[in-house]
């Protein structure tokens, strides 16, 4: 059973990651369930951080394959409108699904590039949050 590999808290974070990438609950749910069916949880990993990273990348691949997100998405933060890999890196960073130190190598970023991507993402979110009603 899947629950043995991921805690409910981690499963929730995985779904939220997919939702942040797509901005659509149905697409996110489908991507997460498909990734779990593909057996991402069954593989052997050195630790939970590696397992979560593998699962996150699997979900990301399925999300990016799905229809491209539009501004009409359900997510008010507009997270899903950010470019890749900034969007994925920032989502993992905020959700705490993967240790921040491991995120840059997932997207082949240098520490400086990762820091820049986070800064650009923060600027985007600050603008969205300031302009949107609280």
């Amino acid at each position, binding site marked *: 059973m899947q629950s043995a590999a991921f805690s409910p808290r981690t499963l929730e974070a*995985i779904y939220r990651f997919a939702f942040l990438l797509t901005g659509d609950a149905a697409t996110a749910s489908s991507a997460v369930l498909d990734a779990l069916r593909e057996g991402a949880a069954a593989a052997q990993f050195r630790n939970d951080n590696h397992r979560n990273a593998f699962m996150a990348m699997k979900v990301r691949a399925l999300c990016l394959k799905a229809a491209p997100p539009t501004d009409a998405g359900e997510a008010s933060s507009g997270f899903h409108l950010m470019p890749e890999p900034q969007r994925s890196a920032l989502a993992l960073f905020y959700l705490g699904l993967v240790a921040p130190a491991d995120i840059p190598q997932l997207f082949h970023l240098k520490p400086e590039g990762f820091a820049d991507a986070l800064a650009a993402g923060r600027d985007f979110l600050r603008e969205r949050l300031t302009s949107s009603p609280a």
Partner: protein
Amino acid sequence: MNAKEARIILRSHRPGQPQDARFQKALGEESLKQEYQRQAELDNRVMSLVHAIPLPEGLLDKMTKVEPGKRRLDWRSARSALKQPPVLAALIGLAVMVGILVFFWLDRMQSFPGREAVFRMISTTQEMSGAELEPLITEAGKLGDWFMLKYGLEDFNVPPEFAGMKTAACRLFKQDGFPVAQIAIKRENAAGMLFFIFRAEDFGVKLPSPDRWYIFTQEDWSAAVRGEAETKTCFMVAVRGKRQQLEDFLKSLSKETPG
């Protein structure tokens, strides 16, 4: 540590993470400290937002019950998989292989020992002037007796489904020293049709399934040969025309003839 390095450390820091010595050092400059505080405020706000994203009802339950290896089939993913060059190449290769196998299978289905001798009977027809045939207008079914009386050949009979057809002429010729009966059929508004009757063993003809027609084409003729198990003779119908015409003719006979 310069400002650039300090900024990399501070920008990559998530609120709640342990604050090690390098982080403390990066906070040393007042302007960077203020920058980080503004960043941390935003981070806390975003983190509370993303952690509050609700899950669709029942999804968590589904996620905990998923069994690996049972991915549902999605037409979109199947379609995109078909567009992958290796899959496409494999499919084309498979189609070619199936085509070749079908070709050989069809060829094998129409092949039988002694086929060359039968082919030669048709080729002989190509060289005929018409004068070789003896005019004889009667029902094809009556020719068995005629061959018996005139040439002493037993069992050179026309099968019952062809017995009612009118003959125009007939002859007996020898191929490799063995007798072959040839009958020209009188057909109005239709291409020429010939019947051949011969003993299977004379020409080494062995039909794997004697009850079925073996159809082949030879130059502008299409022919169908069938074995008669009881008399050990072969009966062949040849028409000047396309294979499909002959197949249609044989089908019409089987519909007309009960049993």
